[in-house]
């Protein structure tokens, strides 16, 4: 574990800013869960409860012009990078007006032209994609940019994870790969996922800098990601950050997660990062409890009013879709598209 930079300290203002993004993500996800239970969501709902501190800390390091490919439990990181309550709800509720226009749903959303890549479900696949985006920027003569992508403990077992991180390391690209070790890949525990002591042990094998941190502690996450971001931007090559935490929900809202070891839930790993951050803010007297409650109300108002609005929006009309997979329709097969 490298020493965190001296100036990676976190001011109360930064802490609160991060917390409020986490809170908004949490409130939004609570809304998604209730919309799911009400049968209003088309398809599954996959939440990042318990992973907000790590996720937001990635998103906050990125600037306009950087590249971010979040994964399924990164609502907080997405919002820190500029995703909105509106785009999230539009995608989950299948609004025609959302960025994915009903063609893809839930967490498979992005705005690639803005550096916000839309994940595919195949784990590890976004690592080489972000690496390629960074390579392209370098070929265009740009410097100082940063790319980041997130993955879970399960995703580290894929070939794409290995190939992508290795290729990025060979090119010494300014990439951060954040692993949220949330203890379970769907129902598969760490013991059936990998045999190394800590997933950060893999960093040495790729010749990249590794960091292993408590993923429930916002300050640690912010400091670490700040250090990693600086190192990557300054030419230090890929950085692998492993945050240890617990997924506080099922794999999706359809999953009651009965397989989760109850001991983990009461251990430090199972702490709720949002609650911890809130307690810190109040105990440090950075804000009063009532003020924090007000932030939550604000978040709830934004989420509820946006959900009401999106629920009134039209879904995609099959008659309006052009059913065209090519940007240049002249190359479509006429027999197939008739």
């Amino acid at each position, binding site marked *: 574990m490298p020493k965190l930079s001296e100036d990676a300290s976190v001011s109360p203002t930064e802490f609160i800013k991060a917390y409020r993004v986490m809170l908004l993500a949490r409130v939004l996800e609570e809304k998604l869960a209730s919309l799911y239970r009400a049968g209003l969501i088309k398809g599954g709902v996959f939440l990042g409860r318990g992973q907000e501190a790590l996720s937001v800390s990635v998103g906050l390091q990125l600037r306009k012009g950087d590249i971010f490919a979040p994964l399924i439990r990164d609502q907080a990181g997405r919002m820190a990078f500029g995703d909105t309550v509106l785009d999230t709800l539009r995608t989950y509720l299948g609004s025609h007006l959302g960025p994915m226009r009903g063609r893809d749903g839930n967490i498979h959303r992005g705005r690639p032209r803005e550096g916000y890549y839309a994940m595919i479900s195949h784990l590890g696949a976004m690592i080489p*994609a972000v690496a390629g985006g960074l390579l392209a920027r370098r070929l265009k003569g740009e410097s100082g940019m940063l790319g980041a992508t997130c993955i879970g403990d399960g995703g580290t077992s894929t070939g794409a994870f290995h190939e992508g991180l290795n290729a990025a390391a060979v090119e010494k690209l300014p990439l951060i790969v954040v692993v949220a070790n949330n203890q379970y890949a769907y129902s598969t525990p760490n013991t059936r996922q990998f045999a190394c002591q800590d997933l950060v042990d893999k960093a040495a094998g790729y010749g990249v800098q590794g960091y292993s941190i408590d993923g429930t502690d916002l300050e640690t996450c912010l400091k670490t990601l700040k250090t990693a971001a600086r190192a990557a931007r300054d030419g230090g090559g890929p950085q692998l950050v492993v945050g240890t935490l617990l997924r506080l929900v099922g794999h999706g809202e359809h999953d009651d997660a009965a397989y989760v070891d109850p001991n983990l839930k009461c251990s430090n790993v199972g702490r709720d990062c949002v609650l911890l951050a809130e307690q810190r803010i109040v105990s440090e007297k950075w804000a009063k409890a009532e003020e924090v409650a007000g932030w939550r109300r604000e978040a709830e108002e934004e989420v509820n009013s946006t959900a009401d609005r999106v629920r009134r929006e039209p879904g995609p009309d099959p008659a309006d879709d052009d059913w065209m997979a090519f940007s240049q329709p002249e190359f479509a097969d006429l027999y197939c598209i008739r």
Partner: protein
Amino acid sequence: MSITYLEAIRLAQEKALNEDPRVFLYGQDVGNFGGAFKATKNLAKEFPGRVIDSPLSEDAIVGMAVGAAIEGMRPIVEMQFADFSTCGFNQIVNHAATLFYRTGVPCPIVVRLPSGGSLGGGPFHSQSMEALYAHYPGLVVMTPATVEDAYSMLLEAIAIDDPVIFCEHKFLYYHLKADALPESTLPVGKARLARAGRDATIVTHGAMLHESLAAAEDLATDGYELEVVDLRTVKPLDTDTVLASVARTGRLLCVSEEWPWGGVSAEVVARVTSEGFGLLDAPPVRLNAKDTPVPYHPELWSVHRPTASAVADAARRLLHI
């Protein structure tokens, strides 16, 4: 001057690198070594920093191309052999091919697949993958059969804003030659009438074009005139040109180096029977490779894939002679 099919591919990449700063090459051994088949020979020297050696990672190669394409570049990636593209399959069919439909952002990548059988290639260096890729929405699949097409179609592939799978045939690399590079070409998606005839139509692509033309020569000595259609791209597939030919001849033979279950020949037969059943004077015939892995030994391989004599035999069956 005599230009080989392989040199045409190299020259097309050189021209694209020269003319378009967005183009770069990424793949195994493509840099100073010049590629396993030398399709990128000297390009690294000529275009410093733009012809990049990758690790042995087909998934990462295609994945990086997708990311670079999102950022506005035009990557050309080489899979050392088409067979190894299975290791990059996910990025091709699930990432590159879906990107535009999902996000509205085009994915202008070219995946070069040195395809098909050649002497001694064996099970893992001989495959024809075009039908697999053609099955997925969002991919253009090219199968150039001539030196001229290898050159002009690769240039077009690079210019297209959508992902293109470029199935260049290894069997044609060295011995197929042309006197000059083409000035003009047929549009993408247009099949070419490689030989005019009246008695039966052979629809084919890639290296099988040359086996089919040789078979047509053979039958000509018996007084039968076979029409030969070179599909050029298998997706889009030029149904109109095929149907027009069948309308003239009334008989259809589809010849393909692919395995027999499904594939381009099956697609052609399906289209002709559903759209042009009344044009047919006889049931269509398909001739494919045998339904086994591609064997290594030349004696086995020469029977595994359709050859000119097998095509001629099939044509005679179709003509009842």
